[in-house]
């Protein structure tokens, strides 16, 4: 045969094609229903996605509500700066830590309902901005840029400090002799900028060696990679303790900047800002009025109006903050007043032995020992 007999193929495909076209009426109706239902589900799903429910916030302080709901206060602290925030035998201690404990005591009547999140200088503000922490109590300097540009607010100053230098004993006696030196500094801090400003104003050159974390900066100074280490003066004393032979290092006398250290919170939650601010002020007012951790129970029976308002016997100042009447009582009972906290952490009762200096009360009886700690009255 010349060609193949393909007629069977034509017949079969033709037949098949006819079969495909011929479906029962019910089947075709079913198909239409399937198509319609799939379109309907598509539209319904899109509509549901589009209607993203907006959670309405009706309460006064979003942060306070979140903290109460969570049951713990999320507090951003340093990775390990003696005197300010450092884990000691597994428990966090320090001046900044005490402030967090005071806030926790005011809210929960328990100074330990805190989740401590250690942060590097680089990440601390991002953590606060994004809501990972509620309050940043990490020896942070209050500057205009940080309040204007980062969306944060400082709730006061709990330590007036300044930047200084630490060098090995015998190297130099003044910061003015540090021309051409290598200086270790932690990255992302006001320290870096102050250093640049100082050397520029004195027309000296230097080599900055910047590290992301405190530990590496200290290691580099210890290893001799740099001649000097610079940070806030309080930090210098704290870091010196960590060195193998503290007596071989000295802190130079020059203080080259103003560093008002204090706790920071996010903008947009004024009530929370007030809570943190007035916690700090309560501690200062308590020291002014002579109320301490030991005598606060006795002070409940005091006749002095200012003391009565402080401990909550008169007035209800905590209510508008979302706290209880005895908010300040809780703070002083669990943590103590500012003076006690200072002495315990950075003062004479601690290895750092820093004097009150600028951090003394404004009305210290001795003229020469007056400082800048001044709190608005609780009334």
């Amino acid at each position, binding site marked *: 045969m010349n060609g193949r007999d393909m007629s069977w193929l*034509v017949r079969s495909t033709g037949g098949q094609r006819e079969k495909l076209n011929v479906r029962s009426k019910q089947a075709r109706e079913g198909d239409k229903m399937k198509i319609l239902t799939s*379109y309907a589900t598509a539209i319904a799903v899109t509509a549901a996605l589009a209607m993203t429910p907006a959670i309405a916030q009706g309460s006064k302080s979003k942060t306070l509500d979140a903290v109460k709901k969570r049951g713990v206060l999320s507090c951003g602290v340093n990775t390990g700066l003696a005197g300010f925030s450092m884990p000691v035998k597994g428990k966090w201690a320090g001046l900044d830590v005490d402030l967090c404990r005071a806030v926790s005591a005011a809210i929960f009547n328990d100074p330990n309902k805190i989740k401590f999140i250690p942060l590097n200088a*680089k990440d601390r503000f991002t953590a606060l901005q994004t809501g990972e922490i509620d309050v940043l109590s990490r020896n942070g300097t209050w500057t205009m840029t940080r309040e204007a540009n980062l969306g944060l607010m400082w709730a006061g100053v709990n330590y007036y400090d300044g930047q200084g230098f630490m060098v090995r004993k015998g190297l130099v006696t003044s910061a003015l002799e540090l021309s051409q030196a290598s200086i270790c500094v932690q990255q992302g801090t006001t320290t870096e900028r102050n250093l640049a400003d100082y050397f520029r104003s004195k027309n000296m050159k230097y080599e900055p060696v910047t590290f992301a974390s405190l530990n590496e900066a200290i290691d580099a100074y210890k290893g001799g990679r740099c001649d000097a280490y610079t940070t806030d003066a309080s930090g210098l004393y704290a870091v010196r303790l960590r060195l193998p032979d503290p007596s071989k290092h000295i802190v130079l006398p020059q203080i080259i900047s103003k560093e008002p250290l204090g706790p920071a919170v996010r903008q947009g939650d004024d009530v929370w800002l007030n809570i943190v601010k007035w916690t700090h002020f309560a501690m200062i007012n308590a020291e002014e009025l002579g109320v301490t951790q030991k005598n606060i129970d006795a002070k409940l029976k005091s006749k002095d109006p200012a003391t009565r308002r402080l401990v909550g016997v008169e007035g209800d100042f905590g209510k508008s903050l979302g706290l209880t009447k005895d908010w300040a009582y809780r703070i002083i009972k669990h943590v103590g007043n500012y003076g006690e906290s200072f002495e315990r952490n950075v003062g004479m009762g601690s290895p750092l032995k820093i004097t009150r200096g600028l951090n003394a009360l404004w009305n210290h009886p001795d003229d020469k020992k007056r400082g800048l700690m001044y709190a608005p009255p609780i009334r």
Partner: protein
Amino acid sequence: MQDKGPGREQQHCIMTVQDSAELPPSGKPFNWRGLFWQCLLMAAILWLGYEAVTNARDNMQARNIPTDFSFWFGTSGFDINQTLISYSAVSTHGRAFLVGLTNTLVVAAAGVFFATIIGFGVGIARLSHNWIVAKLAAAYVELLRNTPLLLQLLFWYNAVLKQLPHPRRSLALPSASLQMPGAATLVAGLGAIVAGYVLIRFSRRDAGGIWQLLARTCGPLLAGVGALMLIFGGTLAGFPAAAGDAFAGMIGFSSGQYGFLNNRGFYLPYPVFAGGMNRVWLVLALGFAAAIIFYLWAGRRQLRTGQQLPRAGIALALTFAPAALVFWLSGAPVGFDLPKPRGFNLAGGWRIYPEFFALLLGLSLYTAAFIAEIVRAGILAVPKGQTEAAGALGLRRQSILKLVVIPQAMRVIVPPLTNQYLNLTKNSSLAVFIGYPDLVQVFAGTVLNQTGAAVQVIAITMAVYLAISLATSVGMNLYNRRMALVER
């Protein structure tokens, strides 16, 4: 219907085609449902993207976090110690970005270069017939591949480079100068080199046995010792020999301190070129062009006629010999800026920072371990028949490797090699932990923290790394395409 011949068949086909004129050739209706779902998905993705951007922007504005790029032009206010371009505390954040970028590119390029060389060397060494060499290479690869890169970087920085002495007690490197070797050194050195060469040639001809083993190990050893004697002369044995002495080598050391090594860096003399160098650069450029032309011509000649010339050696000589001649004739118009102790550190000279060196070392050695394995895989992927055939043609082991195996192995090597280059570039961001001011440390670290513009800064940093990686992979793909097998 019965078969009535082709004509009837075709008629049948035409009829059936005409029957189906109202349906498209596939026989199915147009896929409207599929199109609908695709449009819906596209709309959903676009909507999600739009929502993400506007949500972020609104929330940032509500918190007074900057949403624009004006921080780029703000004053930085901080200093950086290693910069390839001029920078100071009054420069802008944009300039700081450039400093970080150039630092990253430098360390990535240098890292890629060294990692490739070391990796190829170790990979080939691992396939060596010499048991010790192969095992050493294997140990290197296993050790460096299986430990985290960060630990290695910290090791190099803390355990090695920090242990160097303080600047006040720097290790001084003696200065070296070229001189004519003394008579005794010449005789002994040249004699040893010739003897070693003869042994190597002798070992290739004989069948085997203990004498051949001895010859194969002693030959290179003797040649090496001879070369060392020729170069260093009497200083090898411990007594410095001045120029003109019988025992002087080609390189003489004097007591001047021209280089220093301490824990703040490696200080070398920095060449300062006088005006007379212009002629030298011109001759160098011309020599380089001539070398390239020669290299290509010699390659074509080899393909055409099969005659070989030592291409690489002649090209190198063409590049440098005329320039060196002009240099000497012009009276060597170059001065050196020497590092001198001043104050706390050393001033002057060319300084290689320990941070840069630690990063380069760590990155190169780590990536070289991976590249070694890739190279080994590529070489093993070439069929053994190729090696045997090349051997049957009478080629030596080195020639087989160079002319037959490696060119074919490159096809297998290049794609994973691209991966390792990209890894190296991105791993350079670990510089943050040892204080090297690369892009992440300067821009995504300091600038981010000082300005608070987190989203913008991170987006720019990611875009930059993406651009660098894409450029690298495009370049490597072009090279790969040239190497690819043209299949039918």
